[in-house]
């Protein structure tokens, strides 16, 4: 089980990388609007919406 001494810090580093990604995401303004994107996924793709019914 001594592998834990390597695996645990490695896992923490992974977590730190994820946190770093999150911080980058917030700083670039991707989390400024938390409401509208929830609706945007409901919209059809461009190609579909342009077809003539």
């Amino acid at each position, binding site marked *: *089980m001594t592998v*834990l*001494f390597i695996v*645990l810090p490695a896992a*923490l580093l992974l*977590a*730190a990388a*994820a*946190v770093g990604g*999150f*911080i980058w995401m*917030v*700083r670039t*303004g991707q*989390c*400024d*609007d938390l*409401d*509208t994107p929830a*609706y*945007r996924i*409901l*919209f*059809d793709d*461009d190609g579909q*919406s*342009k077809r*003539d*019914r």
Partner: protein
Amino acid sequence: MTALTAGVEIAPPFKESRCIECAHCGLDVPAGLLHLERDKQFCCNGCEAAYEAINACGLRDYYELKSRLAETGEAARRGPGRYTEFDDPAFTERHIESLPGGACSVELYIEGVHCAACVWLLEKLPSVVPGVTICEVDLSRRTATVQWDAVRIALSEICRAFDRFGYVPHPVEPSAQRDARKNEDRAYMIRIGVAAACAGNVMLLAFALYSGEFDAIGEPYLTLFRWMSAGIGVLSLLWPGKPFISGAIAALRAKVWHLDMPIALALVVGTFAGVFAVARGSGEIYFDSLTMLILLLLIARWIQLRQQRRATDAIEMLFSVTPRRVRLVRADCVEDASIDAVNRGDLVEIGPQECVPVDGVIESGTTSVDNSMLSGESLPIPLTSGDAVSAGAVNLGSSIRVRVEAAGRTTRVGRLMSDIERLGRSRTPIIGSADKIAKPFVLGVFLASGICLSVRAPTDLGHALEAAVALLIVCCPCAVALATPLATSIAIGRLAHCGILIKGGDTFEPLASTPTLLLDKTGTVTEGRFTIRTWTGDESLKPAVAALEAGSSHPVAIALAAVAEPPSTSTQAHHHLGLGVTGHIDEMSLAVGSRRLMLDLDIDEPPWASEASHIAADLHCTPVFIAKNNEIRAVAALGDAIRPDAMPCLDELAAAGWKPELLSGDEPRMVEHTARSLGITRATGGASPEQKLERVAQASTDGPTVMVGDGVNDAPALSAATVGVAVSGGAEASLMAADVYLSEPGLAPLADLARTARSVTRRIRLCLGLAISYNIVAGALAIAGFISPLLAAVIMPASSLTVLFIALGAGKARRQ
């Protein structure tokens, strides 16, 4: 609402026999606009035009999406003019950001955006308007960020595209405050993310440690896990937990009690004791509970912050709707220009029913203006060339041309607004019940740990210290700190849906108590416009009078025009400024106006007419004489009617212990009369802004005050009151000074607000009671030495969750 609802004996407006939905917005189509030969029906021209524009662009999926979302509609809007002011160099400099590669970007407030289908439609703009590259809508703020190629298309053309779809774009004022808020929001979110990562990872390690307590765990692994927990725990305290520590230090410096103090105490003591225990190699550690605590508290505060931001944003966006566009007269040709481009000495034209955008002197034209926003005076003031006008007045008569003396921030209103902005919230802060608890709480916890040490230390110092640390940690007032922000922010969110915007959460407690209610008369308890109160004499003249007065925008004329459905005969009206109107209808000559007009026309006043005018004067109404063929046949009394909802609302508020009082800039006799008919004992009329401020300050010494007002003249009083409430249609300055904005007119929203405030406060008290009883139980267990890290990890979140569920129900008790 139409003027037909006045208390006059007229036929009710026709009712729709059936409801047909408008093909664009889904609202009911008025019977008068039904065209049975068409297969699509529209409630207004705007909707019809928007429907055609949307279909012509091949975007009819909008309607399908809308029906799928089951959204309620909003009628299409049309803006004035052709948006050429958006192309002004001055506008460009102020609002438009140039991007590399020749593209431009602007943020616009889009009036009329209300649902996901609107988002879909507007974000399709790049595919239907060539030259637009990106259109991104923010639904909660109702803004759109548009990027376009300045070579291929002008911004005014993009704005006209918005307009064709039934939305009116407005420029968003750049504001340093907003940028600061954005950065603060981002910092908060990063803290939450880090706190969540810390809490999650410590929890994983804690699981291993807890299972190690039951099974055996190897000594080296135990040490590894404990060191790692300690490392993450310290990180969590120093980064996401920093606001609590700095809050506590700030409170210590200011020598006030704040809830951050016991929280910071628990966090710091817990972390230090934990690190010490890890370094020593023995002793309990509580890092899992501590990191979780930081996360929960941060989330609760962030939810509160977000709700308040929404209300602030919504109010700020209301500013954008005020006219930014003026009609500039240059070499006898009138062109649209942005207000930013207007300089002193320019000549601007102001049409009927438009708001005056500048301070200046009338160069040509004769009109009357409604100055009620500035002075509280509800009667129109006649003005002619040479007279001064101030920004914020509404032009009621014909077009005037004004020589500009000051524009924008240098106008009287602009200066007042800067003053209010600068002074900010100068009033004493409201100390919420949660912070009132802080003092006894901290003292109680210290006392308990003192008892714990003194009782147990003589026998076993080590365990006594451990029990004291456990006590400090489990007694952290997490649930207490959660209760208030959650309950208030949920109530703020629910109220915002009903059109009641609240800037700060600390307004609920004074609203739930028994404050002195100071009401500005115009627009809050009365309709704020003339209606016919009595009609003495010949009833058959009503249609003719209505026909004669139709088309004029004088308040008296509007009231008279609404007296009956005018016949469709040709009329010739001759207006006598400030006196009335004369004219011919169907071969009969008609004169409608004041006693002066009758005297001028040599018409004798019969005794019954004098009596009727005396009765009108007793009611504090303006008598209007109606003469047919040079003989007085009827007398109408016109007055400002009290809103039908004012009486029941005042009764409800009075029953809750509110002490209503009138405080108005209107004529004292009228104010007194209104107060009498509403059963209000205390009334002050003719009050200047300074007198209003003084009265509010005086009332504030006896307890909380709630000031309701709409005008610029109310702004200082609004910012001085414990809770300032601005009502619908109010001036910008009053919005800025107030804590609460009611978007529906009248007092009904205020009664709703008071009801919600009471229910929220009740819930907060319940939560606080529960949280405190938890703390007493947990404290007793800690003194007895029963608290282990595992038990703390279970009971601490359990108490917080209980409080959370109770708080979630807040704000439900609205409309009865």
